[in-house]
């Protein structure tokens, strides 16, 4: 077992065995009983438990993927704890004075108001603040439109037919090692259903749900846009959240039925580890969308966090004339490693996909783009355009591009462009000569590099993403 995991376990589970079903933590280890316990704690129906067990049995047969361009100590899955309910108010920090000052400094730089800082840092605050009023008006508005937005646990009870029909329909239980693990032990996550022809009246954000559930390690999200509907979903917020879990394995499934439109935006800023590469979150995510006739799925992501990232939001363009888009900024610094990209699987006729991936590497980090564009025999007249740009800051870092193209239809067109550039001394000198300090200069140059992706983000998210890059690049020059 790695030292990091050792440490993590020590700090986290010193309390040892806890047997009470309603208690905080299930002891480390994974077996069928643990899964039964998780399911029981959540009062799940039998079918849900069976679904989890099927995933678990599949997982036992699977191997951890090795192909990614990342190195990390292999997690000991029997040493992890698979369920932990939110800490009680007494166990949390009682005020911001008890919170890591480094975290607070970041919040200040991002301009986050004090009461939000408290929520993010997990301070035991009374959640009555504005979110209740915001929450209520917001719920009412969604309800009036017929939109369902709740936790996946709630959906299992309230909308079992929808969950049964779509859960695992895009990412099957045994899709890959981490997806299978997630399917077996998922803790919680969001559920969205937009009825036929409805344009969701507001952008849905997990932010509104922060106080509800500590979705934690094995998050599961399912979004269904029924025929002709439209939704924009924002995952996460730009502030780093206090988080005790080192391993994250989330699954996100999107279903866009005929003529539907789903826009999924992520700003991910988990703890990347310190400047020596110690600590930080391992993030192994499976995100995939299924696009039916004339529908559109658009993934936009800005990733600056995590020690190790393994993530490929993908689109299965099943329906004719469906559209898949992937806009990504992945920034790595210090000893971060990211292997991210997308898969565009063209099945239907005249399907179209666009990939714009921007990788920024600073210091000693390793940043890889891995993308698959697959044109199946049925993909008559399908088109893909891929543009993949890397920007290097300094000369200790690495940028790698692994494009995979498989075309089984001669009428399909695949275009790929790739560039690698450096923040040059000349550019830095120009900025400084105009009075701009080096840190601001780098962040301005990097923001310019990311412009094509940022313009896809919802307005206020884009502004925050810019600030976030600035904070993440701190100390990257010189």
């Amino acid at each position: 077992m790695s030292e990091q995991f050792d440490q993590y376990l020590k700090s986290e589970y010193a309390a040892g065995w806890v047997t009470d079903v309603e208690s905080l933590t299930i002891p480390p280890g994974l077996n069928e009983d643990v899964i039964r316990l998780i399911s029981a704690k959540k009062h799940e129906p039998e079918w849900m438990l069976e679904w989890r067990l099927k995933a678990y049995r599949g997982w036992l047969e699977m191997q951890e993927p090795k192909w990614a361009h990342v190195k990390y100590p292999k997690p000991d899955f029997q040493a992890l704890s698979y369920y932990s309910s939110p800490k009680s108010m007494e166990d949390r920090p009682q005020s911001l004075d008890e919170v890591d000052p480094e975290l607070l400094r970041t919040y200040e730089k991002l301009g986050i108001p004090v009461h939000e800082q408290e929520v993010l840092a997990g301070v035991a605050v009374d959640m009555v603040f504005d979110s209740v009023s915001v929450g209520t008006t917001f719920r009412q508005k969604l309800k009036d439109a017929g939109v369902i937005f709740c936790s996946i646990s709630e959906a299992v009870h309230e909308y079992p037919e929808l969950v049964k029909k779509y859960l695992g329909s895009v990412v099957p239980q045994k899709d890959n090692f981490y997806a299978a693990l997630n399917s077996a032990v998922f803790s919680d996550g969001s559920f969205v259903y937009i009825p036929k022809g409805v344009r969701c009246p507001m952008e849905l954000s997990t932010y509104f749900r922060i106080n509800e559930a500590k979705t934690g390690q094995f998050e599961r999200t399912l979004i269904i846009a029924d025929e002709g509907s439209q939704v924009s979903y924002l995952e996460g917020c730009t502030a780093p959240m206090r988080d005790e879990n080192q391993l994250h394995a989330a699954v996100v499934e999107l279903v866009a039925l005929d003529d539907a439109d789903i826009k999924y935006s992520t700003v991910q800023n988990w703890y990347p580890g310190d400047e020596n590469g110690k600590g930080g979150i391992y993030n192994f995510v499976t995100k995939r969308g299924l696009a039916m006739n004339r529908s559109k799925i658009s993934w936009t992501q800005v990733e600056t966090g995590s020690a190790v990232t393994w993530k490929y939001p993908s689109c299965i363009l099943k329906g004719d004339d469906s559209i898949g888009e992937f806009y990504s900024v992945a920034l790595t610094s210090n000893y971060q490693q990211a292997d991210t990209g997308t898969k565009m699987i063209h099945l239907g006729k005249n399907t179209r996909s666009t990939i714009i991936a921007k990788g920024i590497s600073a210091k000693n980090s390793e940043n890889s783009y891995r993308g698959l564009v697959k044109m199946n025999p049925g993909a008559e007249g399908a088109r893909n355009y891929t543009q993949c740009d890397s920007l290097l800051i300094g000369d200790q870092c690495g940028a790698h591009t692994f494009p995979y193209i498989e075309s089984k239809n001669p009428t399909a067109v695949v275009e790929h462009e790739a560039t690698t550039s450096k923040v040059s001394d000349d550019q830095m000198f120009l900025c400084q000569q105009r009075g701009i300090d080096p840190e601001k200069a780098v962040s301005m140059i990097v923001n310019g590099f990311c412009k094509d992706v940022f313009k896809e983000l919802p307005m206020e998210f884009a502004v925050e993403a810019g600030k976030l890059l600035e904070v993440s690049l701190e100390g990257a020059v010189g």
Partner: protein
Amino acid sequence: MLNIKNLQAKVEEKTILNGLNLEVKPGEVHAIMGPNGAGKSTLGHVLAGRDGYEVTGGEVDFEGRDLLDMEAEERAQSGLFLAFQYPVEIPGVSNMEFLKASVDAIRASRGQDAMTSMDFIKLARERCKAVDLPQDFLKRGVNEGFSGGEKKRNELLQMMLLEPKLCILDETDSGLDIDALQVVADGVNALRNPERSFIVVTHYQRLLDYIVPDYVHVLSKGRIIKSGGRELALELEKHGYGWIDEEVA
């Protein structure tokens, strides 16, 4: 304003500036001429504080401060401006954004608030007119795809916006058509006042018909080997640099 004493500088172990002396008083315009590779651009870079140059001797006083002790951005903030011989592109960063960041950084160093976007846009448009650069250049990436002459005009635009105390123009006239040359001259002349000084590096005495200098210097092999008035430029035009070398030798 600026007093350079016995300045020596190296780049990559090669001595480029070799005991250079120059004094510029407020309101003066100094032209520097000299053969290719003499060290003219190097002088500009060293004064502006570019990394990679090693100052091995001498001193530079700028408005009573030790210039060589300041960071590049500090020098800019205290009023030193360099118009580049080869302006560099910054893709994706709009000219407007860059110019505002620059103006705001310089204002901040003086304890002034950032300009509102509205005020800034108005100002930037005005200055664009002054240097005859269409306004859509404000939206384009910094120097991105600009022609040679447009890049030079963009340098001038920056100078007009920042209103520095000391302007060093490194061959701002090279590659300009006659109309553009007039624009550059008009820009400089408009900024000329008893408090502001200019160092104009050029190969062509013609520019000096438009921007009339107080002094003309010849820089060769890393030092100023001859100084004179306006008429020196005319002589250089006629006879080249050879005769001075002989004279000095």
